[in-house]
């Protein structure tokens, strides 16, 4: 439907890379030329508390915050945040839970955010190369290989579901 906005909410704990993941998605959509807004609350997030970040993209986006119960996609990085964050998801929306990727196959637990982006990417109309370009641009070079793997693992996991 023309003008429809896609709403994605990321939820997790401070230090998990929730905001990094949302930055990457926002940039991927932005590079595609779409209208994008991204918003989060991260005042005290460095101290391990709950963090959520909203990304909205489409032809025209007004509020930077996803209205409650209207997330098309909910990406949750911490199991303890699942229950609290489900209210964001619209009926029929897609949940990407923390165990969407087998933890033992991750190159590092620090790559979970990128792996879950890999899962999410299977649902969104952006090319893999566009994703990887932005992932790399957001991380130091020594982490590129590890995160490329994590992204591929996530994307592959999504296809199996």
């Amino acid at each position, binding site marked *: 439907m023309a003008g429809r906005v896609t709403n994605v909410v990321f939820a997790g704990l401070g230090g998990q890379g929730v905001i990094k993941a949302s930055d990457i998605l926002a940039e991927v959509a932005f590079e595609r030329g779409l209208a994008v*807004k991204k918003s989060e609350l*991260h*005042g*005290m997030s460095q*101290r*391990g*508390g709950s963090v959520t970040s909203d990304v909205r993209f489409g032809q025209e986006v007004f509020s930077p915050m996803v209205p409650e119960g209207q997330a098309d996609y909910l990406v949750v990085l911490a199991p303890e945040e699942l229950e609290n964050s489900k209210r964001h998801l619209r009926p029929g929306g897609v949940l990407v839970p923390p165990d969407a990727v087998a933890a033992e196959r991750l190159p590092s637990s620090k790559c979970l955010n990128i792996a879950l982006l890999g899962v999410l990417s299977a649902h969104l109309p952006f090319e893999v190369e566009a994703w990887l370009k932005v992932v790399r641009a957001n991380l130091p070079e020594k982490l590129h290989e590890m995160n490329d793997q994590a992204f591929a693992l996530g994307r592959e996991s999504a296809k199996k579901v």
Partner: protein
Amino acid sequence: MERNRYLLTGDEAVAQAAVDAGVALGTGYPGTPSTEILEHLSSLGGRSRWSPNEKVALEVGIGAAFGGARALVTMKHVGLNVAADPLFTAAYTGVTGALVVVSADDPGMASSQNEQDNRRFAVAAGVPMLEPSDSQEAYDFAALAIEISERWRIPVLFRMTTRVCHAKTAVVRRELAQPKSAPSFQRDIPSRVMIPAYARPAHRRLRQKLAEITAWNETSGPNGIEHSGDGTLGIITSGISYMHAREAAPGASFLKLGMTHPLPVEMVRRFVDTIDRCVVIEEGDPYLVDALRAAGLNVEGKSEMYRFGELNVGRVQRILANDTSPEAPPPRGKPPQLCNACPHRTGFTTFAKLNCIVAGDIGCYTLGVLPPFEAMDSCVCMGASIGAGLGLRHVLPEEQARRVISVIGDSTFMHSGITGLVEMVYNPPPTGHVVVILDNGTTAMTGLQEHPATGRTLDHKSTGKVSMEDLARSLGIPNVVVTDPVGDPEGFEALVQRALGGGGLWVIVARRPCLLAAGKIKEYERQAGAAAACSSAS
């Protein structure tokens, strides 16, 4: 796709505009959600500096603007309370260059001790105020603020909120007008020396300027009307509330105000006349609605319940539907906490064990109020730990007074703790007093910013360093002890116990770098050492 298009936060957009408009100096004190403006300005090659506090930052900005330069001063909303003194009189003196004061408000208190609405400051001080609603407007309005400041020789308040500061939205940069002349001192005693004889005409000049700005805002201000629908519903709004309302009520007509002080009341009146029902949608205090009603306009406001917290699309829909049924409280997420192995933990374990009455302060260590420590009894504003601790000592019965301790962080001490120590020396309580400075070598809560006692500038280069212990000794405080609470927790506890029991005046500096900062601090020190070696070799 436009090549000149960037995805920026509102904070980054303000910094970008400052660079593009040739701002000579940015000053401020870190505070969520404003901190990233000066950091980004620095990363773009602009000149930006952390001051010890917002008052000093604004005074430096005033000086720069007296010298004919363009100056940007940034702070969070409560910072403007600290900077209010220079702001109110700078409105009288006016400026020669440009002076833009960013107030980043935090409705909903994501990371603040109150949710004061700083639009009130524009009225109280008598300065024009701009309110951007996204990053593009943050960029455009920052340029406009400079233009207004120079045209009317007046400081401009640039009021942002959390969702404008931290939301990323698209920004298209453009050519911005550069300063017309290089900074140069022009003497102007009657304008800048506010003795009563010069201040009386200065106040009249200020009101005259505001009258001219009102007239300009009526016809040429950054305000817009969007007519759609059948004129049954009109919404008057500004800032981020516009974005929520635009989404919540697609069929309404909108009057979006970009300059909300002085208000273009006649423009609003003409809009109201074309609409059956006009609702003012604003976050926080009923600032717009009260002003418009006082002007005799028939507009609706929001129910008192929506004064609290942020607005969003759902809440705007409720306001428009006059829905005052109770709102479902958001589920409680995991609260933030002191990091595992945070050096502050030793302090709060000790204060709890010794049954201290803790006058606390603002920073990461405020989390000492939460379980398992629950070792904080007050937290009001930056620096209040020392004054409040002294006040408690003055009036409590001796057994309780001897348990009172003031606990303050290093950055907060540099911000507002020094005058508290002066008070302690000048008016010592009969039982003495104990001040503990939790020195973790950084401004941790806002994201590891430097301050005068770290000896490094905003961009982590070596500079003059204030020694907190030498400062305390120079004030005449007899017992000044520096200790590492993590290296020797038993010794720290024994020291606090001795200080509490012994009477007299104590300053204990508990020095141990923040875990998150320690590696970075080592690297900055290594770089500084290398630079020093280079310069001595050459």
